[in-house]
């Protein structure tokens, strides 16, 4: 069984600007695959090419075994797309949005009526079926967009930043639905810049920066490869970090100095924390935690703000 999505040297150029600079990606059936990266890393451009709405500039791309340049409509018939901006019709009702979208796929009205009811139950919007979309909260609109993307029973679902801008309750509800879809065998491809989201959901992911892939693997693999097992965060009085960082540098594999704290990347956080105490440094705040994907992300893509 080959990959559902197979990209080789995939490139997207806009005039002289290179948004995606020759990436290789394989996504297999049933997995949750993530594109991580800061804004402008090329995630959305990649997703749009996979979604067969943006022509490939160079390289090859196969989706469901077909070439998007030739079989765009046939591929899109089997994809579910959850775009960043929802693209819902705010003046139509919740149910109407689902029904009309299903019609775009040529599905019969009778099938759609049943499916709309199921999908609304799935995303917990049954009570809102006849409400205008304009009256929904951000989280509800997002769930409706997910339901809409499922109307054609897609084999691959593309989710561009599925939980950006949602409150924690709404995010968890979206995550629950996505995990359930994965259990039902739907292949999920998502972009995110939330590390907790990637750790929660993704089986495998790539970190993109400046149009290229800078790391690839499972969340755990990436943490092992690019960060230490644990991190000790030392909070010192402002202005003293630089001097103190020098005194603890030998206690860690890597030391990072931030405006309000010093991070010690180490295999054994407790041992490092004890050593700090033994040297009489006693910082006002000390926290030992496991490394997260966020540490990997910041290490790979830097702390410089990209806008």
């Amino acid at each position, binding site marked *: 069984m080959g990959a559902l999505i197979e990209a080789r040297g995939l490139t997207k150029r806009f005039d002289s600007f290179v948004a995606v600079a020759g990436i290789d990606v394989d996504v297999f059936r049933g997995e949750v695959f993530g594109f991580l990266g800061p804004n402008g890393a090329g995630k959305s451009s990649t997703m749009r090419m996979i979604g067969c709405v*943006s022509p490939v500039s160079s390289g090859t791309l196969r989706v469901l075994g077909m070439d998007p340049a030739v079989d765009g409509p046939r591929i*899109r018939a089997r994809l579910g797309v959850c775009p960043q901006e929802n*693209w819902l019709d705010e003046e139509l009702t919740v149910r109407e949005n689902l029904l*009309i*979208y299903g019609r*775009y796929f040529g599905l019969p009205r009778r099938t759609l009526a049943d499916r709309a009811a199921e999908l609304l139950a799935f995303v917990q919007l049954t009570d809102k079926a006849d409400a205008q979309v304009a009256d929904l909260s951000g989280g509800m609109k997002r769930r409706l967009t997910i339901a809409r993307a499922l109307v054609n029973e897609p084999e691959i679902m593309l989710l561009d930043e599925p939980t950006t801008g949602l409150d924690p309750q709404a995010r968890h509800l979206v995550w629950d639905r996505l995990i359930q879809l994965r259990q039902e065998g739907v292949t999920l491809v998502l972009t995110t810049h939330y590390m907790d989201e990637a750790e929660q959901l993704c089986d495998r992911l790539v970190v993109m920066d400046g149009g290229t892939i800078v790391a690839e693997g499972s969340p755990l693999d990436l943490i092992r490869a690019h960060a230490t097992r644990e991190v000790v965060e030392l909070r010192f009085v402002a202005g003293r970090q630089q001097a103190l960082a020098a005194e603890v540098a030998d206690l860690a594999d890597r030391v990072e100095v931030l405006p309000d704290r010093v991070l010690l990347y180490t295999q054994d956080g407790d041992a490092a924390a004890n050593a700090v105490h033994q040297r009489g440094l006693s910082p006002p705040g000390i926290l030992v935690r496991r490394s997260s994907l966020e540490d990997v992300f910041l290490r790979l893509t830097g702390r410089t703000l990209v806008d």
Partner: protein
Amino acid sequence: MDTALRALEYWLLSYKRTWRGTIVSSFLVPFLYLAAMGFGLGSFINAGAGRAALGGQTYLQFIAPGLLAATAMQTAAFESSYPVMGSWKWIKTYYAMLATPLRVSDVLIGHLLFVAFRVLMTSMVYLVVITVFGAVSSPWGVLAIVAGLLTGLSVATPTFALAVRSERDTVFSMYFRFAILPMFLFSGAFFPVSQLPVVVQPIAYATPLWHGVHLARMFTEGTLSPGWIAVNVGYLCLWIAAGTWWAARAFRRRLVT
């Protein structure tokens, strides 16, 4: 074609919310125009030398087909401006459609079909009203609807292109003020173009509306000339073909990036 009809279905669904209002206004507007101009202004013109200049018919009979074509143009221009821009810029309906099996050509044709439907409805209502006012003197008058449809599409297609090419909706206030309104006033709907200064007459004859008005007038008066029908229909079809080509190019450039 089947896929373009799916896109049309969206427009019909969203029209369901507002159709009542548009039906009322599409009866009211011709009624007001015909009452004010056909009877009010017409009573002056018919009493004076104007009647001879109009070829012996009443002013009401003269402007009724002109108003039908001019209103078809206005309906088409409006339906092809803000709604088209909104579909890629604000509501993004086009993008939602393109994430499905629909193609750019389906999105364009589906929306154009809806505008054609709206123009057809408006023209039919107009025809009913002017018939009631006694302004249609031939059974061929039924074909004024076709004149209205062709006029509408000849304006709708380039307006689609404009609405997709332009970055901001400010372009429309210019468009309506400097293209649609002058065309409405000076394309032979209210007075014969021969009354205009000789130098500007060619501009009036080059507008699609003049051809639409001329065509509609032949039908309502029953003064059919095969040669003129061929010229008017041919010219309007030329605009529709060129406008569709331009709109298709603009759609691809905007939506396929």
